[in-house]
């Protein structure tokens, strides 16, 4: 049988490149163990963009590409906050997004956790001084973890999530 291109491609990169495929794989499997062990089942994530530049979203979508394919480790981005265990927030929390973000948070069933992604969402945001920005997110919600980077790379996000579950 002919191997479809994209599968072949993954196998090829297994052996080459500075971010070796194996590392992601091991990290992912560890994550899976943690997720299944601590939560009994898979982990559902709801992402809310509170005023990002879109690069953070790009990295989060990259987590679903065949290189990383987060879903096979039991982590899934879901459409409704009502299905979610964890809220990812990107962006600097603008005035206009403040109410929708709080709304989404309130609709997540307990127990729930907030993780902020990217410098914008943290203390050191370059937009913080603006009249339209209400961040950092931690001023409004209790945040269990902040993932640094502008934007944080997919492998950083994965390894940070591991450390979160180890806590």
């Amino acid at each position, binding site marked *: 049988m002919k191997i*479809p*291109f*994209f599968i072949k*491609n*993954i196998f090829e990169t297994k052996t080459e*490149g*500075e*971010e070796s495929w194996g590392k992601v794989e091991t990290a992912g499997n560890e994550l899976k163990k943690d997720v299944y062990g601590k939560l009994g089942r898979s982990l559902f994530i709801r*992402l*809310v*963009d*509170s*005023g*990002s*530049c*879109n*690069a*953070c*979203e*790009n*990295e*989060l*979508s*990259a987590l*679903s*590409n*065949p*290189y990383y394919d987060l879903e096979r480790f039991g982590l899934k*981005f879901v*459409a*409704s906050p009502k299905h979610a265990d964890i809220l990812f927030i990107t*962006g*600097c929390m*603008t*005035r*206009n*997004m*403040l*109410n*929708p973000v709080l709304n*989404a948070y309130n609709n997540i069933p307990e127990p729930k956790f907030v993780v902020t992604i990217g410098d914008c969402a943290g203390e050191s945001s*370059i*937009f913080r*001084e*603006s*009249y*339209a*920005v*209400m961040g950092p997110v931690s001023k409004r919600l209790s945040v269990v973890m902040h993932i640094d980077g*502008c*934007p944080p*790379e997919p492998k950083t996000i994965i390894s940070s999530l591991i450390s979160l579950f180890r806590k």
Partner: protein
Amino acid sequence: MDESAEKGFEEEIIGKNELRDKTNGIIYGGGYLLGVVALDNLLMSKDRFEIKYFFVSGRRIKSLAFLPGDSFPSLSDICPSAKLYEREIADMFGIMPLNHPDLKPLMLFPENWDAAVHPLRKDYGGVKCIGPDFKRYGEYKYKKVYGDGIFEVPVGPIHAGIIESGHFRFSLRGEPILQLEIRHFWKHRGVEKLCEGKSLSEALKIVSRISGDNSVNITLAYLTAAERILGINVPQKVKHIRVIFAELERLWNNVRDIGFIFMDIGFNLWAQNLFVVLEDILRMNKSVTSHRYMFDIFRIGGISDTAYIDGAKAGDIAGLLEKVKDELKKAEKIVLNSPSVTDRIELAGKINKKTAQELSLCGVCARASGLKRDTRIEIPYLLYGENIKIEPAAFEEGDVFARTRMRIKDAFESIKIITSLCRSLPGLLPEAETAADKEAADAASNTIAAGIFRAGGREAIGNAETSRGNAFFYISTDGEGKIYRLKYIDPSFRNWPAIQYGILGDIIADFPLVNKSMNLSYAGNDL
């Protein structure tokens, strides 16, 4: 050099009552609106407010400038693309467009902001407008469609997937969409005000984060304006490298966007295939510039040290692009030859040429609707128009199919440009930077640091073609060379309204597809 070349535009001072006639003249002469910029001259010695309308007319940029006092005539009937700019001016400066058909607040939501607040006025203190009690100031009124069996479907601001925030409100009767109202600016970060008072190089960091996936090209538009103000002429080699990065960004954007189109028609295999290619390009970006999205790779007058391309890096880039090209060729074959694909994308989201003209669309959306608009051709910058000649091209249909083919064409064009530049690059730089170059660049950055350049009280514009269309900057400086007013206009700001027309008569299930085929930015639009 004459003054208009230094500023990048020709200005005509008019009275505000002449505005409509003059605009008519320009539009009938084949020109179109590029953007509108308002200024508050409170700290400078002129009449308080000033408004400039920028048009592309022939191969020049022409501005009509006037002093509005506290109101000015709306152009919305003769030049519909002016509508949004006028609403923005009403919000930000409190100068009222007269006879405007839809004067709702735009960026400052009536729920969240006191109507008396106008942040871009110089006497606005910058106080954050929020009470501890979340006081609601007013209510936003959506356009309503009345009649039997009509219902509304509100979507957003938070969407189902990993997407930016924005609100869409559909009115339907049965399946077909009768009206779509887009309500954006949820992500309004106040970028323009934030840049005021910063030096031209300090603002660079903010500017490159306006819209992350178009960071390179937006920054290039900014640098064009800033370098005009500073009177810096960048060396040929720097231009060379800047164009490589600009095209690289256009390429990965187009690869991703074509992937999105496959995804939204349910052809996941090919979507994922292109996402693999995308990830490969991003990883290469990282190894070449040390950032996957190429943030902060430029400085005024040059390239930052981490992103300097040498012969080896140029070889890497050209090598990967060979592979990308093969994959895109296969994707093109599928787009053109599979009935299951063309069935979905033909006729969906059709924007006809007249609409495109009236809304002054730009970029892929304009080119897919029969308008040959490309900043690289119309307002050449860097190497465009010099070493690089781009053939004006357009498709007539205006549907998703046309936009997909346009993107594929753009991607091939980028690959061609990058490959040829990478080949000629080693000839330009025998070793890394030559001593003379380094000296010139150092001298330039020293003058910037010392603040003793000629930037006091100057103004200039800069344009660049992003993967979405024209990015426009207007910058003016105060006596000390700090930014007095910075206005950025994102291609998405011009193109978003077009979806409201393109989607009419289609079904909601097609909306994600139409939306993705244009793939507009929320962040750049909302600022």
